[in-house]
């Protein structure tokens, strides 16, 4: 019915279409699994059910809250309305200090305890991640 050339072109188009659909599907699927949400301590308090997924928590490190022993760092993240206890074992960035902004990545144990797997480094003393700024309400 159709010429050889048309048929070939048709197969070619179909192949492209199929691979595009496959790509989109794969990307979306993987995105759904690997996205990390950012939440402030207040948002965590208002959660109805706990999520098992990895999240990021941001705010200020509460004054007088950091304690260190040989394998753990404990501290409290606050957004001046609510706070959350963080347990962390891993390397601490230099700019991590009491009274400074921080972003921790990890898992919630419950609404008051957070096990961090990573504390994100900042590059600059004055720089505050926009998420943190928003979370503590532009203080």
């Amino acid at each position, binding site marked *: 019915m159709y010429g050889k050339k048309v048929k070939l072109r048709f197969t070619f188009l179909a192949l492209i279409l199929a691979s595009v659909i496959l790509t989109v599907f794969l*990307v979306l699927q993987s995105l759904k699994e690997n996205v990390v949400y950012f939440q402030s301590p207040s948002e965590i308090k208002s959660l109805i059910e706990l999520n098992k997924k990895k999240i990021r928590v941001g705010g200020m490190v509460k004054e007088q809250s950091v304690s260190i022993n040989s394998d753990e760092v404990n501290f409290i993240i606050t957004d001046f309305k609510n706070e959350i206890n963080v347990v962390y074992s891993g390397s601490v960035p230099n*700019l991590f200090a009491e009274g400074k902004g921080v972003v921790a990545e990890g898992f919630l144990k419950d609404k008051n305890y957070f096990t961090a797997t990573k504390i994100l480094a900042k*590059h600059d003393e004055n720089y505050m991640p926009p998420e943190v700024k928003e979370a503590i309400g532009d203080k």
Partner: protein
Amino acid sequence: MLANQIGYYSLILGLLLSVLLCGVSIKDFNKTNKQINQNILSLSFLQLVFVIVSFLSLIISFINSDFSNETVFNNSHTTKPLFYKISGTWGNHEGSLLLWLLVLTLFIFLFLIKSREQPKKYRILTLLFQQIIIIGFFLFVLMTSNPFNYLFPTPNEGLGLNPILQDPALAIHPPILYLGYVGTSIIFSSSLAAVTQNYILKQWGQHIKKWVLVSWIFLTIGIMLGSIWAYYELGWGGFWFWDPVENVSLMPWLTLTALLHCVVVLERRAALTSWVVILSITTFTLSMCGTFLVRSGILNSVHTFANDPARGIFILIFLFALIVLSLGIFFTFHKENNKSSNNFFWLSRETSILINNWFMMYFLSVVLIGTVYPIFLDVISSEKISVGPPFYQKLIVPFLIPFLLFMSLGPRLKWIKSKIENKNSLIITFIISVMLTFFIIKNLTADLLFYTVLISAAFFLFFTTLKELFIKKFNNISQTVSHFGLSLLILSILFNNILSSEIITNIKIGERYDYNKGEIFFKKIEERKESNFNSIIASFEIKNKNGKTIELKPEIRIYNQPIIITSEADIRTTLLEDKFLVMNLVKGNEYFNIRYQVKPFMVWIWISVLLLSLGGLMSLFKRKI
């Protein structure tokens, strides 16, 4: 003071010259003379001189610590070593844009010199399109980010440069990367000019290939320098973090690599013309997008110098204008030539290059979505998310398997129609690769099946290219070197990933820490004073299981201006592995937080990237046959 004025007025003169150049070249366009008007060349040279003068005067202001200049005040300090005073010139927003401008004008001048045998109208149009970009950048610099803003009263001391930028690799990273980025602007302008003149032919392919190669080499090395810096300075011990800022430099690299392969098809067979033009436009757009995302403050990183919305909006509008212009030109003027060159058998060199392009486009879409989706979601729903490395690894790593296999076979195919030759030797190579991989992987605790397949594919490419390097059966040695480099890169990254080990602990001075493979002993700390920082140098003894001891001395630096604490990792590099130790300070605490890593084949990652670009360099200087 004086330097300031000279720099500023040279910039304005440069802008005026741009306008003048446009006028002269439009006038010259319809004249019948064969060569372009000599004045155009002189004017372009003059413009370059003005931008150089402007750039030099900024450097002089930095060297003299002239704090009446706002840029110098914001980014420099009298106690900074001379080298970093100079590199501080482009270590900030205003200065780096001036550098963009410098490279833009330099490249168009070089283009005019190097394209004498090309058609006149094509050259003039390229110049015009390039001048549009140049005018855009002139306006951007003068209106939103003038590097010569005057401060009165003159402050006594500057604010200093962020210490993590005070580093040799980072001093040359921006210029090299910019040469790559801005090189794509020439490809963009000339492909638009070629489309309007219906000049997308073999000759054009040969001529533009040089520019593609130059940009590609610089971009590759620029990305590598950034990566090396991140490895030893940021203290994570990794070299690629899938950070948005890294991604935006990877995206133009992917399209540029695709373009590099397509241009070869164009040069030989005058096929894939539309695709070449689309790739040229995309590459430059992505370079501009990179600048926009990085500079506008949308992405958070050390590259974000200031969050000034006016700048972001300017680049965004400029970018949209360029995209609309280029697509308009493409659709109005482009005619697909329906010659026989578009017909090729399914098993041919053309197909293999198309397959390469498909993979590049796939990798590009993964990186693009991962980078842009969080921004997009933030805008529409104000939900804050981040996309981590697992996303990219999951979507890219499995696809490396077919990619590597095609890459081993593709270059062996002939143009138009081909069959696979030497099947037996290929099969033998493949079996050797699989067996070798199996014996290596068997002893490791990694996902056996997946890694065996993946590493076999990488070894397959490794051996096939290695064989070709020695036999030289194909005279295309530059390509073989690059492909060999890539196989080495992937192998080193994979083994580096599988075999790396790390220990993180908090430790006091004089303490010992035992782990299953040895012992870390925190011997002592020393303090030292430098002109712009105080440092604490620790010394650690690390004992292997077999009693071998090495001493590593990581450092913590407390910079005085601005007050920032940085960690300097101590790295012991050998051909087989890197030993990496970094220490962090926890304020007001006697514990030091340390991270000790053993990273096999680290140095091979850098070597293989150099090989990759060496291939490009060889192709650039290859004599025409």
